[in-house]
């Protein structure tokens, strides 16, 4: 960390114009995704899925399928060890999912059998020939129904289908409400959302007679997949190599086991031939996982000047059939529901309930978009109820540097105050809006990686190995996963900055469990801070070794500081005195008796509370136009005031924020997952609506200059947190334009029309009353 303050002053690579290092491979089509992997002798797999939301599997007869020419194997739950797995490995009771269930299916689309054949077409034909006898069981789809005494039992021994409960509390909630001048209660519902990665789930597994498995898989954490696969296959982690190649998006949906990886592995173990399984878009919709639908009840007490005295929130979430990462989402929604404010007293109780629907899990924002949709709208209404300025009301309660969320988190850097200034100016500059337009904003914050270690890994959270060749080129090995978010570029920038060379000197190898040190992967916005720290430390280690030789070679007094910038090794006080980078590397390599210079670094958070080492802050403003007669919303303009510490890569940051905005706005008014009797009604991209370029407004970003001491070069989270505020901002814009309160998302046109009708009737009665 010795160079931190120096680097802050004189950055030569960080936040300059660096083009994504994968960019050329991607735009020229050379980037190979799992879909592109083709191995000699490879077979193609397809998965037979349950047509029932809840049923016992009585018998599976695959004889006709096996008789089809070209079919090589059919596997069912009976061909597996039957291990119930889950990503919360510390808690056995939450490991509840057999990817190929042995005796019972719990949602429509759940895998029942898998086929391997010489072509994908034959494999698909074979599915129709597999005969499954089911005993259909009563099913339940809504968490409120599933908690009833008479509801069917989805998992044996789980009372009232309650999968997980979470409680968070600090301060004196009762006293806060007693002292409150104003108390408001509201109920909300936030829907599910599909991750909708451009690349659907895909895996190619290859098992050899030596007992070694290699798996190409489109994922967010090669290490998690390796460890989870070892668990379900009864193998050692080290005998399984997972390679995340180029990955076409993750968004929180690709770090658990899926049918593609598991079924291809079981098939290849049976056949000793590689097996590839690629999901269709429909399979990706109906048989992966989704954002957690949540029922929210919120009670908030404030003083008449708008001081936040107490809040109480309860959540009942639709867990679907299995736990997945849903338990974490249940915790984080409760934690971020308090954000970004200081509450006198805060209490949260969350209940995650099993239903016979698609399991819910983590998705970009990890429970926080739901939390903010409810919190930030209710706060807006409270400000209106009390006649307070919504910005100033929030500001007086906002997090500040040095604040401790009692017993939960320590806030070091925080640019929230400046964000309020930026938003206030934007709104003021907009002046009087044309008819049917409204402006709304919402605040939010987010974590820079999770500290909770429910996965129970013995490895450090992130590690990096840097190797410097004698010509000055550099190889960086990280277990972190590049999923399109620009992680490899970010790490190359941090490495180039720390070593003092250029980005083009660095080759990044990531996401391969054999060749890279373990890293928990790309989820919870952890890689920039955690892997970034590991990379920085590895580079500091290597640089230190290099500079020993530089000091000796230059024959300097040891009190001189040496540094390297732009491939120039020099005395800090006399920058013109020095030598080229390549020359020093050669000298050092010779000096080490020909060993290459290797630096190692790792990061595991300590003394940072139980949630995250650092928090980003943001305000999202949106201007919308509403057609009052049809209820249609059009996004007109937006502004993001954003504190992510020191941005590492401006281009990458802007891309991430644009993506977060579109996903979040889609959650606010478009993306909708309707189920009928447990069946998803729109599992295709015609009927599932996502924002396209034509719907995107301009998304300017005002970066707030802060420095996060825990992050590499002062960096923290960027790109996920901005998924949190936007749905609420849209709701608030509707409130200001039309005076109606939208308590369900996505906010669909008929809801606006109906709310306006109700309001007109209410206004009429009120007038009559007078």
């Amino acid at each position, binding site marked *: 960390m010795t160079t931190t303050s120096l680097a802050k002053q004189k950055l030569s690579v960080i936040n300059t114009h660096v083009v994504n290092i994968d960019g050329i491979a991607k735009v020229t089509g050379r980037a190979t995704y799992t879909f592109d992997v083709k191995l000699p002798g490879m077979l193609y797999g397809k998965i037979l899925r349950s047509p029932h939301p809840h049923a016992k599997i009585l018998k599976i007869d695959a004889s006709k399928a096996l008789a089809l020419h070209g079919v090589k194997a059919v596997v069912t739950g009976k061909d597996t060890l039957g291990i119930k797995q889950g990503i919360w490995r510390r808690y056995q009771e939450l490991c509840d999912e057999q990817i190929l269930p042995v005796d019972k299916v719990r949602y429509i689309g759940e895998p029942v059998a898998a086929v391997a054949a010489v072509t*994908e*077409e034959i494999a*698909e034909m074979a599915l129709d020939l597999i005969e499954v006898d089911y005993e259909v069981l009563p099913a339940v789809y809504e968490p409120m129904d599933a908690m009833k005494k008479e509801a069917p039992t989805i998992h044996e021994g789980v009372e009232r289908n309650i999968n997980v409960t979470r409680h968070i509390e600090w301060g004196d909630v009762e006293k806060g409400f007693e002292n409150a001048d104003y108390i408001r209660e509201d109920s909300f519902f936030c829907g599910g959302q599909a991750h909708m990665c451009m690349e659907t789930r895909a895996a190619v597994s290859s098992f050899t007679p030596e007992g070694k498995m290699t798996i190409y898989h489109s994922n967010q954490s090669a290490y998690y997949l390796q460890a989870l696969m070892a668990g379900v296959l009864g193998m050692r982690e080290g005998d399984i190599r997972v390679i995340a190649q180029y990955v076409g998006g993750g968004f929180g949906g690709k770090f658990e086991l899926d049918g593609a990886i598991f079924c291809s592995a079981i098939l290849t173990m049976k056949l000793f031939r590689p097996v590839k399984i690629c999901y269709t878009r429909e399979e990706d919709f109906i048989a992966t996982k989704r954002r957690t639908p949540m029922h929210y009840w919120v009670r908030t007490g404030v003083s008449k000047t708008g001081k936040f005295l107490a809040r109480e929130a309860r959540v009942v979430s639709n867990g679907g059939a299995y736990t997945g990462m849903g338990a974490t989402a249940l915790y984080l929604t409760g934690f971020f529901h308090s954000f970004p404010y200081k509450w006198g007293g805060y209490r949260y109780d969350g209940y995650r309930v099993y239903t016979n629907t698609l399991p819910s899990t983590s998705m970009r924002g990890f429970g926080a978009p739901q939390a903010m949709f409810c919190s930030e709208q209710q706060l807006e209404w409270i400000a209106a109820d009390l006649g307070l300025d919504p910005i100033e009301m929030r500001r007086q309660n906002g997090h500040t540097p040095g604040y401790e969320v009692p017993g939960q988190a320590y806030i070091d850097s925080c640019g929230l105050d400046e964000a309020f200034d930026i938003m206030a100016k934007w709104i003021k500059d907009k002046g009087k809006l044309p008819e049917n337009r409204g402006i709304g904003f919402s605040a939010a914050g987010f974590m820079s990686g999770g500290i909770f270690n429910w996965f129970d890994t013995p490895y450090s959270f992130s590690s990096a190995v840097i190797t410097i060749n004698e010509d000055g080129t550099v190889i960086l090995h990280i277990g972190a996963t590049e999923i399109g978010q620009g992680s490899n570029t970010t790490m190359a920038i941090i490495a180039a900055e720390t070593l003092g060379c250029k980005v083009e000197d660095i080759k990044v190898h990531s996401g391969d469990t054999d060749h890279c040190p373990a890293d928990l992967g790309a989820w919870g916005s952890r890689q920039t801070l955690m892997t970034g720290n590991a990379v920085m430390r590895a580079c500091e280690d290597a640089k230190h070794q290099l500079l020993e030789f530089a000091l000796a070679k230059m024959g300097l007094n040891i009190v001189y500081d040496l540094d390297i910038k732009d491939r120039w090794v020099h005395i800090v006080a006399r920058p013109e005195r020095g030598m080229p980078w390549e020359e020093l590397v050669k000298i050092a390599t010779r000096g080490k008796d020909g060993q290459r210079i290797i630096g190692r670094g790792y990061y595991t958070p300590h003394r940072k509370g139980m949630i995250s080492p650092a928090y980003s802050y943001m305000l999202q403003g949106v201007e919308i136009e509403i057609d009052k*007669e*049809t209820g*249609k919303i059009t996004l007109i303009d937006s502004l993001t005031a954003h504190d992510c510490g020191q941005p590492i890569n401006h281009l990458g940051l802007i891309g991430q924020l644009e993506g977060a905005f579109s996903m979040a706005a889609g959650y606010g*008014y*478009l993306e*909708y997952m*309707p189920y009928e009797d447990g069946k998803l*009604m*729109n599992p295709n991209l*015609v*009927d599932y*609506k996502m*924002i*396209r370029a*034509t*719907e995107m407004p301009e998304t300017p970003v005002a970066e707030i200059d802060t420095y996060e001491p825990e992050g590499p070069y002062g960096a923290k989270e960027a790109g996920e947190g901005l998924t949190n505020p936007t749905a609420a901002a849209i709701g608030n814009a509707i409130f200001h334009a039309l005076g109606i309160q939208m308590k369900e998302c996505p906010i669909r*046109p*008929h809801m606006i*029309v109906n709310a306006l009708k109700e309001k007109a009737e209410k206004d009429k009665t009120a007038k009559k009353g007078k």
Partner: protein
Amino acid sequence: MIQDFTYLKPGTVKEALTLLTDHVDECKIVCGGQSLLIPMRQGLLVTEYLMDIKGLDELSYIKYDAKEGLKLGATTTHRAIEQSDVIKKHYPVLALMEERLASIQTRNWGTIGGNLAHADSAGDPAPVLMTLGAKVKLASAKGERIIPLDEFYTDLFESAMEHDEMIIEIQVPPPAAKMGAAYQKFNLLQNDMGVVGVAAMMTADANGTCKDARIVLGNAGVTPIRAKNAEQVLIGKKISDQLFVEAGEAAAGDADPVGDIHASEDFRRHLIKVLTKRMAKQAWEQASK
């Protein structure tokens, strides 16, 4: 997965009609495939023969004559119609409708004949062409016949075409004097299919009364629907904003929509009411200019 089929690629219309007669009950015609390939991929549609007439250049034309009106060959692409100067001049509503039909990629490849023959009630061209009084020319090996588009649609994805027939031309009469026409669909994403769509055509006489009106509703029933009660509200009347409201209400009654995940039956009727009011007004403003 698309089930195997035999691909037929005729070089002339004559050859196409012969092939169609040969395989009459087991042949589907594809002319762009922007609609047909979806149900084929979903396994909802299986065919023994697939005849691709997209390459029949003799059917790709846009002809206009002040007396005869407009003639569109069946294999004319949406994009060609959208960009045609003669259409922009004489039937601007057609060009505007095309501009909002799906993506540029789809418009570059999809054809007007294919679209109409697919008989999707949510299709954009049919309501607009119906308000303009269009006819379709059908051909079989036995001969040709011309029927009004009004009578073309019979049921969900079904038309009056016999199995040995195909559309070869669309004919639109010359625009009447003092005529206005407008079309809008309600959707959440620009250029998506309409949750509902409304096309309106109105003509004005010298006194400023409505001489004629045609209103057609898209995706408001199993076929595009002529909102005849709504038309009657307007025809022969001195036009006022109140009449547009009444026409909207009448159109909501003329509609026979089905609820789905995008909108309930009630909300569809509501949207039809609003769009009819707006489109009739727009058409009238053009007509009475």
